[in-house]
């Protein structure tokens, strides 16, 4: 493919209540790349509450028609994305469909084999791979040789060599300063990538506990850019553990406190609650944290072992208490259907979480996600799940299909009755 100007449609499909940062980062990366002066991007934002055919309608209605349609894919949006891509490809066969994200990256070859509408899958972080793909396309090169992609070449699937994760996150162009921000008063930010934990159900750490942080200068600049946006009232950090270290939390408090004093609030900040004491809770409050999100995910010993999670009942309870005393709502998350958990374990988890009076208790059923340890070991662990996204759990060795559904209903009912109260 070689055209005067390479026209690229960046299509973001969100789920109601959530928004992905991926498209912001990709947009910034393309804009900052001097090799891509002859690349024109246009962004389309949709969400899963509309029919995927309407997403296709918006893409196919572009004039001039895009040469490339790029879409990040998550388990929640995958069906929508595949459907929209299928319609686009059918109506405009010359359009190159490029996908990326955790739903497709870890299983790129399989996605290409099963979805003829997809031409290229970006594996891993896309901020450098995707511009390389566009650069190759704009020069008429061979996309399949770009490190970090898998691509369809004629009728073959070619998987190029891997691209290492970006070592210095500051090399990634920031999507925040000088750019338009959402006008609904909320935004997402990240200060590092990676996770210190290796929970078997989670893709966050991608099998590694390596942490890569932005510099403090970059973090402060991104926060300033977002917080100073007119009308901005709420920020969520997507960092897997906001209180990664006491020193880091203290530094974040220094940066965020002036904004918190002006009314900026941080919501659903993920914390390692077992490390939160009165001092850390105070730092969180200084950051403007209104609510934190945490586990325990399960209290069942077998499931904790199978998932590689640590859990100390007393320390967990102390962390919840410290947050509550600092005026911070705690959302305790529980996952139904972890390997090794029985019905009794799930109910014990609900009892434990509600007994802590955290503010919010949330149950969700396990999704066995591509790239996770549970995905790899599903047969061995007796997990039966839907191979199609969002990969919902069907049954486990210990809990039947019917009982999983009834546990979901029990959890929903208990959470609803728990939340219906006067006062904090």
């Amino acid at each position, binding site marked *: 493919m070689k055209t005067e100007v390479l026209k690229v449609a960046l299509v973001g499909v969100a789920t109601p209540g959530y928004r992905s940062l991926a498209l912001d980062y990709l947009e910034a990366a393309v804009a900052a790349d001097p090799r891509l002066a002859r690349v024109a991007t246009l962004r389309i934002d949709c969400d899963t509450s509309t029919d995927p055919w309407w997403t296709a309608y918006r893409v196919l209605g572009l004039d001039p028609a895009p040469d490339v349609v790029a879409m990040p894919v998550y388990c929640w949006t995958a069906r929508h994305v595949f459907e929209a891509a299928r319609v686009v490809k059918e109506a405009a066969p010359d359009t190159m469909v490029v996908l990326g994200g955790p739903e497709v990256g870890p299983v790129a070859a399989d996605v290409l084999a099963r979805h003829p509408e997809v031409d290229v899958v970006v594996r891993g972080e896309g901020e450098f791979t995707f511009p390389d793909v566009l650069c190759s396309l704009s020069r008429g090169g061979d996309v399949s040789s770009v490190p970090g992609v898998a691509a369809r070449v004629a009728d073959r699937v070619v998987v190029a060599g891997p691209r290492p994760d970006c070592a210095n996150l500051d090399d990634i162009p920031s999507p925040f300063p000088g750019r338009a921000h959402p006008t609904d008063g909320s935004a997402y930010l990240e200060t590092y990538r990676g996770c210190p934990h290796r929970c078997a159900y989670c893709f966050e750490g991608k099998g590694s506990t390596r942490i890569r942080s932005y510099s403090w200068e970059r973090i402060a600049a991104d926060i300033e850019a977002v917080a100073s946006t007119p009308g901005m009232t709420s920020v969520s950090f997507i960092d897997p553990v906001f209180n990664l270290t006491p020193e880091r939390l203290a530094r974040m408090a220094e940066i965020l406190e002036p904004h918190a004093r002006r009314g900026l609030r941080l919501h659903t900040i993920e914390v390692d609650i077992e490390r939160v004491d009165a001092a850390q809770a105070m730092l969180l409050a200084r950051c403007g944290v209104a609510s934190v999100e945490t586990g325990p995910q399960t209290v069942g010993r077998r499931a904790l072992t199978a998932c590689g999670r640590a859990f100390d009942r007393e320390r967990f309870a102390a962390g919840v208490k410290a947050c509550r005393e600092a005026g911070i709502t705690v959302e305790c998350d529980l996952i139904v259907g972890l390997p090794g958990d029985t*019905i*009794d374990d799930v*109910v014990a988890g*609900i*009892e434990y979480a*509600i*007994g802590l009076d955290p503010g919010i208790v949330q149950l969700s059923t396990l999704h066995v996600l591509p790239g996770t340890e549970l995905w790899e070991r599903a047969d061995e662990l007796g997990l039966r799940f839907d191979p199609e996204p969002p990969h919902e759990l069907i049954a486990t060795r210990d809990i039947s299909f*019917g*009982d999983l*559904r*009834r*546990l*979901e*209903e*029990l959890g*929903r*009912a*208990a959470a*609803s*009755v*728990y*939340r*219906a*109260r*006067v*006062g904090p």
Partner: protein
Amino acid sequence: MIGYRRVLIGEGGTARCSACMRGSTAAPVFRPIDDIVREVALVGGETPVPDGVLFTGCEPFSHPQLPGIVDAARQMGIRRVCLRTDAGALSKGDNARGALAAGVTHIDVVLLADSEDHDRLTGIRGLASACVAGVRAFKEAAEAAGRRAALTGRVPLCRHNVHLAAHAVARLAALGAVAVCIETTHVRSVDLTHVYAALDTAAVNGVHAWTDGSFEALSRTSSIAPWYEAAVSHP
């Protein structure tokens, strides 16, 4: 866990099968507010304070001193106040908004069947439509006030309505109930299939259901039920 303490505020006058109640006095008897407040004070004085209180025994909105009763619970620091009600009164005037403002956080709606079957069984014309309107008014008032309110249901079964149990559950599900208790004390074993149908109707509608006064056999088809009763004591 979420432990609701049951406090009787009267007797009679609730949505019950009129055929089963034939011959008994239908007129409700209201417990004096002083008695109720004394009991609530005992409940509120416990350590720790119970999570919630359920006012039941008669239709609560018929009790002339309901606002004072709810207020007494709130004054004792009880954070959840549940009324077991036919919900009809919530459709009238400012009752829904007033109940929420007073501190009612949860309604447990008694339904014998759907639509005109509910009216026929209770002997109260228009009660089913008033119930639907009342629940909607309560939910809308909660949303307008930015308050979280819980809705659960209760389906008392007898030989006159057991075949309609699934209809009642479906209606409660459509209204947004998150849990439904199916009272089976007066159900004959020959009618168990209707109870199974009601439990299945709840399951496919995303509503947690369990049986109160259940048969041994039921615990095998609704295996979560015993834990639910232990976990969320909702008398």
